């Protein structure tokens, strides 16, 4: 159906670009709130694990300029997305360093900060648990003793009486038999530490409650409707009386999905009529938004000497931190998918979420797939070498193909896996040896494949309103968030393609839960697919209304009408051409001087009607948890300095099967951006904690993210297009995926360079320089 598209599939300037380069784009902190704006500060826990014995706020309340103080006594209710294990403010226990204990609302930020210093908290310090292996011991202290009382959705399985927040198990085939059939088996452990999103805009929320009991919030968020829903349930306010306005977001990457610090500004209820602003400092952003889960994985894989994988046992222990509400879905999603993009007949997966006294963890671009691919894709290289097959060929042999059975026994959607592998291998010139003129430098290449499915509830919905104006231009109202990924440009293109309105006559409006229709959340790389489908339905709805009124007014056959260049045309009458501006608001005057029609609007909504999350908890079978997978591959060429251990990626190639690139340029931009974000996590990003659970590197000097200096000299983004039958013009999502192959590709390149197999991220210069000097070092061949 996308054969002769005019807009879809062609490059365009992003529709938000002009606003962003002129400064017209407003982010939450840029909005004016007038002289009665108040500021909030947060008293943070200095302890990773402690009982709260008493909180004395009396001095703070007396401090001039302080308007209100709130503690857990004011907000005893728990909340959360998949499991309600989070406190707005804790009542009796703190569970990580940096956790909010009390908030102060004051005339200025300085006064609010002073107020916080006057709050006295008595703690009984408990031993912190900072390692999943300790948390899983029989006699471990329970971080959530009341786990059994928390509300949870039906397909999440917390284990009361333990520190386990959720388990997802897959049991397919017979793994023991699979290992017996194998000629070679490799088992090993891999570790990926906590990292952070590091959006350049920190979290920010402004909230106002008024005497009509209406709560209005301006949040930097990927999830306005989900926040409204959580807030309505937690506070007992009707949904219609909560209004969440989402201005532009300065980077999300999952960090602004769901709800985190936005729950605190609801303390504005104590000062009705005043807007109250809370903006995280960079340090607070590190500690108290959300981090990426730490993963300890054990991978056991068996293969035949011909290179066929016979069995996989994959045990993943996720450090979800002090609360798992959203992070539990990371545990869940990876449980279904931790085979990697391969057909494997016998599979056993245990994906286990484990509470610790680290900061809470939740969604981060890749949603757990980056972490488990590090182990799987490191393993793929090691096994290939051990059985004497080229690592790229080994991946080809096992690559998941269209209709292959995945781990939960559903069938794979159309898959361009082989094409991705081949094109990336070709782009990186796989197999071509290169030698540096500098004797200290080793040049090597590394490869990794990847896949990912959107992780979302089976009934996650998207909806769209399209409304015309007098001049035939349109405003598209969505609550899918433009977080930089280019979503609104894609939405505009879908509307443009079907309604034949040029892009410069289309605006796509940022979310406002009062006015824009429902959207579950902008996460999971599902929006191009799902909101795209809803947009197409809305555009078709508007088109049907246009045909209806035109056919009634002019007595024409609806079936012979079509749209072209913003006009209604008639197959049967080549001279008929009615521009939109002639009727989309006013309607059409009939021969009797009456009018038919009226303002044209289109509505469209979408949920996937074939998914089912209710699987057997012991085997993971019986459901259809994912809508589809997007597959791809990535490769790097590195220059490794043997003296300093410094690894520089000089070239990269990544290819993903996005079904149909709505905007080829923007797809490539996602590949480049995701790659560089992945490169930071591969080489040096890591949250460093002391033995009391305090994070030590909460700034960009000690927690480095890539700068322009780390950009490889050559970057080759590759688009593969095997259409998704139920996708808009065949599209499926690809933005998160681009980060996934990077850690293992670089690790594999290091192993190929000097035989050093690093199983512990990040792949720092120290590890590279020092490990080969140790006595027991055996080079991987």
């Amino acid at each position, binding site marked *: 159906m996308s054969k002769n598209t005019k807009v879809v599939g062609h490059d365009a*300037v*992003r529709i*938000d*670009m*002009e*606003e*962003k*380069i*002129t*400064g017209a*784009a*407003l*982010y939450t*902190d*840029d909005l*004016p709130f007038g002289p009665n704006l108040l500021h909030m500060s947060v008293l943070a826990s200095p302890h990773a694990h402690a009982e709260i014995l008493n909180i004395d706020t009396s001095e703070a309340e007396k401090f001039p300029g302080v308007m209100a103080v709130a503690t857990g006594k004011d907000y005893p209710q728990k909340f959360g997305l998949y499991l309600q294990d989070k406190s707005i403010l804790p009542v009796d226990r703190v569970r990580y360093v940096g956790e909010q204990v009390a908030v102060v609302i004051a005339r200025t930020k300085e006064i609010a900060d002073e107020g916080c210093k006057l709050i006295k908290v008595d703690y009984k310090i408990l031993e912190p648990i900072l390692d999943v292996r300790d948390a899983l011991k029989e006699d471990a202290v329970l971080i959530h003793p009341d786990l059994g009382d928390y509300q949870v959705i039906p397909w999440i399985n917390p284990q009361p009486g333990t520190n386990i927040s959720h388990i997802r198990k897959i049991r397919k085939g017979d793994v023991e038999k699979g290992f017996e059939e194998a000629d070679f088996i490799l088992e090993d452990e891999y570790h990926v530490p906590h990292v952070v*999103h*590091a*959006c*350049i*805009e*920190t979290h920010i929320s402004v909230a106002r409650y008024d005497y009509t009991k209406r709560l209005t919030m301006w949040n930097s968020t990927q999830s306005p409707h989900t926040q409204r829903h959580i807030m309505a349930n937690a506070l007992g306010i009707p949904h219609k009386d909560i209004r969440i306005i989402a201005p*532009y*977001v*300065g*980077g*999300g*990457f999952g960090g602004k999905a769901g709800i985190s610090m936005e729950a605190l500004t609801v303390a504005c209820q104590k000062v009705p009529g005043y807007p109250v602003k809370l*903006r995280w*400092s*960079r340090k607070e952003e590190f500690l108290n938004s959300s981090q990426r889960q730490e993963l300890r994985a054990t991978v056991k894989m068996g293969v035949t000497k011909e290179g066929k994988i016979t069995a996989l046992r994959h045990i993943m222990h996720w450090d979800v931190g002090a609360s798992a509400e959203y992070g539990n879905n990371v545990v869940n999603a990876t449980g279904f998918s931790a085979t990697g993009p391969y057909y494997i007949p016998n599979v056993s997966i245990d994906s286990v979420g484990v509470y610790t006294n680290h900061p809470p963890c939740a969604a981060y671009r890749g949603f757990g797939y980056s972490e488990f691919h590090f182990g799987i894709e490191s393993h793929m290289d090691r096994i290939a070498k051990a059985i004497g097959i080229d690592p790229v060929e080994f991946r080809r042999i096992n690559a998941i193909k269209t209709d292959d059975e995945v781990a939960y026994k559903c069938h794979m959607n159309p898959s361009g896996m082989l094409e991705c592998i081949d094109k990336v291998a070709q782009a990186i010139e796989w197999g071509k040896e290169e030698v540096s003129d500098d004797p200290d430098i080793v040049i090597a290449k590394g490869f990794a494949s990847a896949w990912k499915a959107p992780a979302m509830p089976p009934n996650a919905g998207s909806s769209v309103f399209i409304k015309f104006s007098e001049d035939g231009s349109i405003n598209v109202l969505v609550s899918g968030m433009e*977080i*930089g*990924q*280019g979503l609104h440009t894609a939405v505009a293109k879908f509307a443009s393609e079907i309604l034949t309105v040029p892009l410069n006559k289309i605006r796509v409006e940022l979310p406002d839960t009062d006015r824009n229709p429902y959207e579950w959340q902008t996460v999971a790389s599902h929006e191009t697919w799902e909101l795209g489908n809803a947009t197409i339905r809305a555009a078709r709805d508007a088109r049907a209304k246009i045909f209806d009124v035109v056919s009634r007014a002019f007595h024409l056959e609806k079936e012979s009408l079509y749209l072209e260049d913003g006009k209604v045309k008639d197959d049967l009458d080549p001279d008929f051409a009615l521009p939109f501006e002639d009727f989309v608001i006013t309607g059409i005057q009939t021969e009797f001087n009456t009018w038919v029609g009226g303002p044209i609007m289109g509505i469209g909504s979408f949920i996937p009607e074939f998914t089912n999350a209710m699987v057997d908890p012991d085997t993971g079978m019986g459901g259809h948890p994912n809508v589809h997978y997007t597959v791809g591959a990535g490769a790097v060429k590195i220059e490794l300095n043997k003296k300093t251990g410094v690894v520089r990626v000089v070239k990269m190639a990544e290819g993903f099967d996005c079904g149909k690139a709505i905007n080829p*340029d*923007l797809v490539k*931009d996602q590949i*480049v*951006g*995701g*790659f*560089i*974000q992945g490169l930071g996590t591969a080489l040096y990003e890591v949250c460093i904690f002391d033995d009391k659970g305090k994070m030590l590197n909460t*700034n*960009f*000097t000690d927690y480095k*993210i*890539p*700068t*322009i*200096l780390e*950009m490889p000299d050559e*970057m080759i983004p590759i688009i593969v297009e095997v259409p998704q039958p139920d996708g808009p013009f065949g599209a499926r999502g690809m933005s998160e995926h681009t980060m996934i192959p990077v850690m293992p590709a670089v690790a594999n390149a290091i192993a190929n360079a000097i035989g050093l197999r690093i199983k512990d991220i990040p792949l720092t210069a120290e590890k590279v320089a020092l490990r080969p000097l140790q006595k027991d070092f055996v080079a991987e061949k």
Partner: protein
Amino acid sequence: MVREIEFTLNGYHQKVSVKPGEKLLDVLRDKLGITSAKYGCGKGECGACTVNLDGKTVRSCLMYAVEADGSVIETLEGFQRLGKKEIQEIYQKHNAFQCGFCAPGFILSTDELLSQNPDPDEEEIKEALAGNLCRCTGYKNIFSAVKEMVEIRKGRES
């Protein structure tokens, strides 16, 4: 305690009262309605708060407002008035930004680079932009846009 300072902001003369500890970023944002200079870290590490002061970029989050007394300040808001639209247009053409939060800082740093060095080589471009963090783009389009700006300027001169 409170002191009145004066400076030129995007071509307009401004007078504003500031406290001794107040940072230029906060005065620009909260007292003068400048929103292009952003808070990203408050510690001089990210470049989101970049403004131009007397011809050089500064991190307005590190600078005390009183230090700006008597200076000439330019921010992104003044670009079109000050005839610097071209940098913006070329960045736009390259789809150089994604979330856009870092864009003002990059545009200011680029403007400084091009006004001081009309013909920077690739390393000089990277060096000039290395203090601006972008988490979204991977820098590729930012880099190619600046290279094009340099080419255009060279073409005009020859």
